């Protein structure tokens, strides 16, 4: 491994957080292409199955992560615990914030049809969403956005890696079926 790849390996080890390619260019005083090539070499060197740690791109940077096969040993040593599961309500709220951000509490409530105050507080406590300013509308409501921890826990390098929302649009036949059910319900009530 050349000296630049070894320097990057050392920086990533010491940083203990994802380090962006731009930071590596600055810290190692190297060319962007050289850094990219060195990172590629490192990814190969730390490919799955070769070492106890792997090199991943997550939350806008690069960082080492424990290989899946070795997680049990690390958990036994460090007592690491998997984060608590997210309920469907929290996942729905998180998806609204992730796709619409910055989003107000009212924006979330408008999509979900229910008050989301509790859900947003819970997500804030878990470090998945944060306040990122106030809207320039009457009342100046708080705006919410996702955090780097959200990117890390969901294995995303950046928000662009989220699948497009249009991909979840229902098909024409689903729309017609839903329309028919609504009409049937309305007729039953009249």
């Amino acid at each position: 491994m050349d000296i630049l790849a070894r320097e990057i390996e050392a920086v990533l080890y010491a940083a203990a957080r994802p380090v962006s390619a731009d930071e590596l260019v600055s810290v190692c005083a190297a060319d962007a292409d050289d850094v990219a090539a060195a990172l590629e070499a490192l990814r190969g060197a730390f490919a799955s199955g070769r070492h106890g740690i792997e090199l991943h791109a997550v939350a806008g940077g690069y960082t080492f992560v424990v290989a899946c096969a070795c997680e049990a040993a690390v958990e036994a040593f460090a007592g690491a615990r998997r984060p608590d599961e997210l309920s469907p309500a929290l996942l729905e709220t998180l998806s609204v914030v992730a796709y619409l951000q910055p989003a107000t509490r009212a924006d979330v409530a408008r999509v979900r049809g229910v008050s989301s105050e509790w859900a947003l507080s819970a997500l804030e406590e878990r470090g998945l969403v944060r306040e990122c300013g106030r809207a320039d509308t009457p009342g100046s409501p708080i705006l919410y956005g996702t955090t780097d921890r959200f990117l890390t826990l969901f294995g995303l390098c950046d928000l662009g890696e989220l699948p497009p929302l249009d991909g979840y649009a229902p098909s024409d036949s689903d729309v017609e079926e839903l329309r028919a059910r609504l009409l049937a319900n309305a007729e039953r009530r009249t």
Partner: protein
Amino acid sequence: MTVAAPQAGELVVDLDVFHGPFDLLISLVLREEIDLWEVSVSRIIGDYVVRLADCGEFDLEATSQFVVLVAALLEMKSRLLLDLEPEDEEQLDAEQAGEELLVALLRYQQFRLAGEALRVRWAEHAGRIYRHAPLPSRFRARVDESRRLPVSLLADALAPLLREPPAPDASHITDVAVSLVAELRRLRTLLRRHGAFSFLAIAPSDRLEKAITFFALLELHNRGEARLDQPRAFADITVTATPSVSLAG
């Protein structure tokens, strides 16, 4: 011997239309079996205050409960006084309402499915273990010895912040030409002469002066000298003298 403060429900009220426990009165008012117009709230409060004075100790919880119930009664009565009409909601026909509901449901379904996709990613990635150890302390702070700041330089930078800034010059700002008292006088004159007028027709064009005219209108309304009619939000306001003003004029 001290007597405990009366609980709201224990208070016996003696009114022209009702005699009995206060909480029964509330129940009957809510069921519209007693006309709220006939209920004298001031007498209820008076009776309670007398009972409080006879008690040796002050029970915050009991008194707070009474205050809440009386406030609810007053709010109901004030709504009757203002004769509030239910807000006109935009009338949608059944088909339009159905389509709106369908669009909302489809949008919700999109995000629900997106949430499901996030759940799959969470299952795969949330358990990964990253290193979170902080940097060793000797690497955390780098001091450039060649760029130490002399204390005198820091003091010179702080000194202006400690000085009182000069008062701002407001001589270029013109005084407001309209005062609330003068505006009240003008509106009263208009009511006496014409009996009624339109707010937009008599309000000054300047925003601040228009606001003062509006405050004067509200003051006239509060004093019972004028009635304000506005057919819908942000429409013009018709100001009409009340009969007492018309007769006096």
